[in-house]
């Protein structure tokens, strides 16, 4: 039980580190590029990829947790993490609705 918890913690740590490092590398290259050439291009694209990676990383962690709890047959927690995921999806949908109105 304990060792499987620790293993899961390390796995989550690895996913978060990969996400945040990828994002920061994209931002660190994209920032000087988009400042040097303000018109849309590679710099702006890298910044957007970096920000998307950043926002997607915690969401990926929630997906991973849901899978883990399903595999463990820990149904209450599988449901709880699914609700969190659903809430994030509602946020994304709400954003698009607002964006259309304005």
């Amino acid at each position, binding site marked *: 039980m304990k060792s499987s918890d620790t293993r899961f913690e390390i796995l989550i*740590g690895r996913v978060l580190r990969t996400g945040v490092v990828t994002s920061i590398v994209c931002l660190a290259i994209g920032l000087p590029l988009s400042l040097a050439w303000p018109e849309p291009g590679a710099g702006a694209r890298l910044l957007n990829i970096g920000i998307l990676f950043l926002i997607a990383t*915690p969401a990926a962690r929630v997906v991973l947790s849901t899978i883990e709890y399903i595999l463990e047959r820990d149904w209450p927690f599988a449901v709880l993490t699914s609700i969190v995921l659903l809430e994030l999806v509602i946020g994304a949908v*709400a954003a698009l609705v607002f964006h259309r109105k304005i």
Partner: protein
Amino acid sequence: MPAVTPTLALIIFAAGAVAGSTGALLGLGGGIFLVPFLNLGLGFPIAMAAAISLTTVIATSSSVTAGRAGMNLMNFRFGMLLEVATAAGSVLGGITAQLVAQTTLQRLFAFVTGAVAVVTIARSTQRNVITDPRVDPGRLGGRFFDAETGATVVYRIRRLPLAVVVSFIAGNVSSLLGIGGGFMKVPVLNAWCGMPLRAAAATSAFMIGVTATGGAIIYYGNGQLQPVAAAAAILGVQAGSWLGLRASPNIPVRVLKLLLAAVLGSISLLMLTRGGR
């Protein structure tokens, strides 16, 4: 909104570095310093300042959690349970932020920073949780090895409904104002819900990534996130918190806390008097 020139990007980077290192020293996210600076200092609308700040919160949460993985200090189960409440709060907060006036948000910010200042002074003497290693942690409690005392700490979660309600409010305030919200959860989890301070702080730092994502998705999807400014702030905060965690200042904790309370008090007054333009 100001045009983001290389000079402005550099200023935002520097501000992020100062906010990140101060935050790391004080155990507070940098957002509470960054948002008023972007809003009052640089003239970003508060929703845009909050959007930028939330992305720095996500980056800090991800890197801090990755660094602590495997130490059993973070209580994943309890954290994920509370995330149901913080994420609901932050999505609702992100929606509310689209509907309320800038001055309302500034007044709320002034109120929250003022309250944190008071809590900081009041909590100069911390209440420690008494733990018994024979206790059954239950389904939500936790167990970790405390290197400082060389003992295994076991704790049980008490007053779960209180933790859920506070998490919802913290999530809501987090995405309305662009701050992490740990300063609201940690004292409550520690003082009333039976969590040792270090476990409460680590679990909160783990949770705020998802909380901030709930708000950031809305601002980003609605086109309120300026990518160049966000990139400068994220890189600044990351560099700053890296430095802050490695610096070991010879300042007594009490002085640090009084200093923090004074800074927060000033921010609160500035938001009240300078806001509303």
